[in-house]
């Protein structure tokens, strides 16, 4: 990587940025899920690894969250954007050099951000935990170059229109900058009290709603038509998806703190807007699943579609939960329980991770022009992710319902802790499976880069997946 930092633009081969982002996001995924597994172990077995300041659950919990959000998920978004946006514009990336620098600033910044957080320097605001100098760095040195590169690539495209995927990429990276600069105003300007609380959750809601959900969807808008060969079922429904994301997804932030004493009008407004999230959600899921018409066999046969469609199918329970669990009728029962933890993992480890893994698998093969080293290992990785995630999701959902019942019937808290304990152990096992699967993935990708069979030009990776 270092040799490209100071190379001339024309000397950097196309796809370099994307490959660098690809390998770094897989490595961050391993770190993030490893931390997650360790954290889960601490909750199941609290006397494991004691006395160490840095290895306390309270220090590591948010490092896990930010490693997977900014290292893995957003890193994988950057990886996909750097090859999908040029491909859809029938052009090359605006600046590979900027991209390579961006990848470096991304990894350096993330290391800085996570280590300061790990050693206790925090803003004390969930999801915007990074201290404000780091927030500025993320917005200006990590996300802004990414936005500029994708935006300029779209401007310099050689196609007539702009495909749905690119709308999402460019729009979401722009909104991410806005969300970072506006959502961290309590730190920049020292805003206090409930204003600070509302802004904290505005940030938390929008960093998920305006980045992770739409970009993961954007990836599937590319992968599914590309691999199946079917055109997207409806470009117009894709537009409905985009616009309803901007309008409905950016407004319900307050539904995260329904139990706080915010103004009641705001809670009601947020709750109604929260249900309207189902508009983009239903539009999206229908659009993708209808694109699969006549090609459903590929869901079983093709590794990229196996990942993508699993992700899309997981988006159905995700959105049904998300739309309704924030209404007052349901929120009072599940708020602050493991149900929410399960839901968050359904969004990040279920829906979006599966979509991104597909993009990373597909992109790596296309850019390296090499077949996967081992399809069996990729399938093994798929099942490790799916089984690990399912164990996690089911166990935390059950734990959450137990907590909710304990909460409303005012059961002494320690009894709830005892009742939850088996599920805490299952959650740890699930997380560990995901972690181990990812190690296999990295090895598979490394071997693909080194020893994968060459794919002839003019042929897509999935067309030769079973050719020996």
């Amino acid at each position, binding site marked *: 990587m270092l040799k490209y930092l100071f190379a001339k633009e024309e000397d950097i081969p196309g796809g370099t940025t994307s490959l660098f982002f690809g390998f770094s996001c897989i490595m961050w995924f391993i770190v993030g899920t490893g931390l997650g597994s360790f954290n889960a172990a601490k909750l199941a077995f609290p006397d494991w690894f004691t006395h160490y300041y840095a290895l306390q659950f309270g220090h590591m919990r948010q490092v896990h969250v930010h490693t997977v959000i900014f290292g893995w998920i957003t890193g994988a978004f950057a990886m996909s954007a750097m090859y999908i946006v040029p491909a859809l514009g029938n052009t090359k990336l605006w600046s590979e050099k900027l991209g390579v620098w961006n990848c470096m600033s991304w990894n350096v910044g993330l290391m800085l951000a996570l280590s300061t957080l790990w050693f206790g320097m925090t803003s004390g605001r969930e999801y915007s935990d990074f201290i404000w100098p780091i927030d500025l760095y993320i917005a200006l040195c990590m996300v802004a170059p990414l936005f500029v590169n994708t935006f300029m690539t779209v401007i310099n495209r050689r196609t007539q229109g702009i495909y749905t995927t690119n709308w999402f990429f460019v729009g979401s990276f722009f909104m991410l900058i806005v969300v970072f600069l506006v959502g961290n105003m309590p730190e920049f300007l*020292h805003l206090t009290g409930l204003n600070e609380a509302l802004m904290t959750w505005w940030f938390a809601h929008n960093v998920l709603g305006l980045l992770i959900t739409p970009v993961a969807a954007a990836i599937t808008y590319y992968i599914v038509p590309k691999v199946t060969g079917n055109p997207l079922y409806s470009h117009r429904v894709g537009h409905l998806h985009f616009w309803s994301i901007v309008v409905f997804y950016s407004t319900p932030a307050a539904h995260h703190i329904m139990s706080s004493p915010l103004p009641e009008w705001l809670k009601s407004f947020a709750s109604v807007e929260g249900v309207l999230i189902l508009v983009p959600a239903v539009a999206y899921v229908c659009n993708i699943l209808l694109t699969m018409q006549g090609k459903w066999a590929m869901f079983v046969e093709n590794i990229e579609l196996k990942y993508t469609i699993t992700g899309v199918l997981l988006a159905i329970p995700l959105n049904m939960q998300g739309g309704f669990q924030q209404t007052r009728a349901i929120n009072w029962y599940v708020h602050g329980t493991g149900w929410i933890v399960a839901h968050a993992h359904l969004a990040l480890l279920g829906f979006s991770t599966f979509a991104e893994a597909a993009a990373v698998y597909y992109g790596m093969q296309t850019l390296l022009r090499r077949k996967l080293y081992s399809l069996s290992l990729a399938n093994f990785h798929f099942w490790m992710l799916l089984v690990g995630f399912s164990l996690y999701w089911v166990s935390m959902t059950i734990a959450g319902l137990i907590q909710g019942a304990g909460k409303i019937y005012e059961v002494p808290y320690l009894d709830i802790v005892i009742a939850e304990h088996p599920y805490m152990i299952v959650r740890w096992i699930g997380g560990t499976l995901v972690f181990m699967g990812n190690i296999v993935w990295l090895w598979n990708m490394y071997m693909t880069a080194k020893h994968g069979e060459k794919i002839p030009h003019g042929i897509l990776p999935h067309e030769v997946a079973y050719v020996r």
Partner: protein
Amino acid sequence: MGFREYRVGSILFGVALSTSMMITIYFPGLDISSVSSTSVALEKQLTYGKTSAFDYGDLFLHGDDKPIKVTLKKDPATGAAIDEVSAYVFKPGTSLPSGLVHKHILGAAVQALSASLGKTGQVSEEKGGVFLVRSSIKDGVETPYIEFATATRGWSVNATLAAADQKILAGSGKTMFIREGCWWCHTLLPEGTHDWQSFGRPPVLGDFNGESPTAFGSDRKAPDLLHVGSRNSSREWMTLHFFNPRLVQPHSIMPRYDYLWGPKDANGKKIDLKKWDEEFDAYREGDRIYPPEVPEPPADSEARMLIDFALNLK
């Protein structure tokens, strides 16, 4: 190809995003900012200071740059006996909370009373001072306000600290609460629908003015702590529980916070955590009748700050 044919779309995008921020940030912000502080909010600001998170005065979250809460039984200026009162001591240079720096934090009525009766206009950060939370009843309406006791009663910082019956480091303790991630499991937000019996009164709209950060938590894996000091006021219990929660709650999954004691205990004796562990394991196996002794935390230790914070949550 340019972006020309997408001009309308781009404009609409900007309009949609700005309108969304207007409705979800600006309007609620106006509404929230017009709320008058309760006495709880005043006490919180004076206890915790400017902020409990990363700041110039406390870059590494060691609990620096925080006020000290004291209880007084005699007047620091005259030495005469008084009814027990809590005072908040800001040593010279300690950062002041928002409510003392900006005019629009406390709410109009509270701000007016604090300025007129409380003389908070004379406060300066360089000189520090001593503060009280008081209230005034007019036409049957009780309004809390901040009194700058250094101006109104001549209570100096040093005299107040010398006369203090008890020093409570809850301001530094909240920093520990944030840094150690206590709030990942313990919320500070009893819910209005059902938490009254177990965890006490839920907070109201004016309870948060000037607090930074609010950090009331979102994922409750442990009891709510907003009123924990009213349920359990035992310093001994808290000390045991922070050192090793399994000493008092065998099924607890809370981490141990024994490393907050520092290298030595209150008597200057070195703390040997490894030996303590072996003895505790022997106790759990039934080889010992009593668990090992928990060392007393030094007066300036982070453990003491955290314990003070928990006990101060009334």
